[in-house]
């Protein structure tokens, strides 16, 4: 997984979804949901997240 969302830190501001160029994150119900199959590992979501709730693993280093 290129990213890991820390749901206890997340404030559902949808900032990550607004800057994701491929629509790989969306708010469903009361939770941000990540679609790994769409992710291009650009890190924009993690860089922009105001709550520092997204842990980003650069390509090749993901677990």
């Amino acid at each position: 997984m290129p990213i890991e969302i820390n749901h206890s830190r997340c404030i559902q501001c949808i900032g990550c979804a607004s800057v994701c160029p491929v629509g790989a994150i969306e708010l469903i119900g009361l939770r941000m949901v990540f679609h790994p199959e769409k992710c291009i590992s650009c890190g924009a979501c993690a860089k922009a997240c105001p709550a520092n709730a997204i842990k980003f693993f650069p390509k090749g280093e993901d677990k």
Partner: protein
Amino acid sequence: MKTDYDVIIVGAGPTGATLSRVLAQNGLEVMVFDKRKELGEPVRCGEGLGAREVVAQGIDLPKPCISTDIHGAKVIAPDGSSIVWKDKETTGWVLERKIFDKWLMEQAVHKGARVQSYTRVIDLVKNGGKISGVSVSHADHEPYEVSAPLVISAEGMESTLARKAGIRATSTLYDVDTCYQYEMQEYDHENLIELYFGNEVAPRGYVWIFPKADKKANVGIGIGAHLETGEKEGGIRGATPKEYLDKFIESHAQLKDASKLQDFGGIISVGAPIDSFVKDNFMVVGTAARQVDPIHGGGIALSMEAGVIAANTILKAHKAKDYSASLLKEYENTWRAGPGKKVAKRLLLRKVMESTSDEDFNYIFKTITEQDLNDVMAGKFAGPVAKVVAGRPQLLGNLKALVS
């Protein structure tokens, strides 16, 4: 259950509420879907609203929607000097957004519009290649289809549907500010919004204090989301608005001992509107189209204004039974020739501010008057620029973009 309408609107914020109110008032059958469990929640903004648009639309805001009256904005330079900006834009209110959003939508329902909360739009439905409706899921239950000859994205920053319609609606990191905000208490204020600028305080952004009732205030920050101001989870560098905000509060005589009642955050657009607002049978209106002020990131008034402009075009399209892009384009042209012009000037100003050092910012603030600041915000740059450049000619290189 009724599953066909004249217009489907996605998003029940100020844009969707305004659009659906005007359309329903004129006899159209309108359905509004919102994915939130309760309209108005969660609040993601400073909650400021200028009175101009509310007055223009003849809306009588009831008391519970308003937290406090605002009489102007105090703009504070990096060295602490300040100028008060007072005009039609800064006379208004700090809202209770939670109550306001819901109330505004209720006004549309009174006129005959329908709204359904906790309903996620899964996809666009197409018929013979043409957009003919949406598939939705209510409370995560079995999806079903709803049809209409016109689907409108009024979804705000996320703009999922606009992307599905093939409109480029993603913001780059450079075009947005990433924001963190607290609702705080107690804060003595003078019914002025306070805006603090400076690269130390808020790189490529600002700190705001929006006063609220009962000595409360929304204290927030937006900084350029492209900036790598600190280390983030996983070790990469990125923007860290919360760290800057906490630092600001620590250094603020009154706020450092104040309490925090709520945390919120978000992303605001400070870039240009998207390239295209319409497609056949499809429109993007409000913040989803990045119809947002690039200086302060405010979107409520612009969204309400765009809602009326879009509604006027839709009424014509409905009458002609023609929802082609060529007819819907009238809305886009009207917006770009009207509010779009002001937004374009504000974007120019934002880019100039971005390349102005703290020291130059301080100098500009010592040189210009309240009237000059009002002129600048009204897009009349020539006078104030001439004054600043007369005393500091080296600033011409930076400021000439405003007057050429």
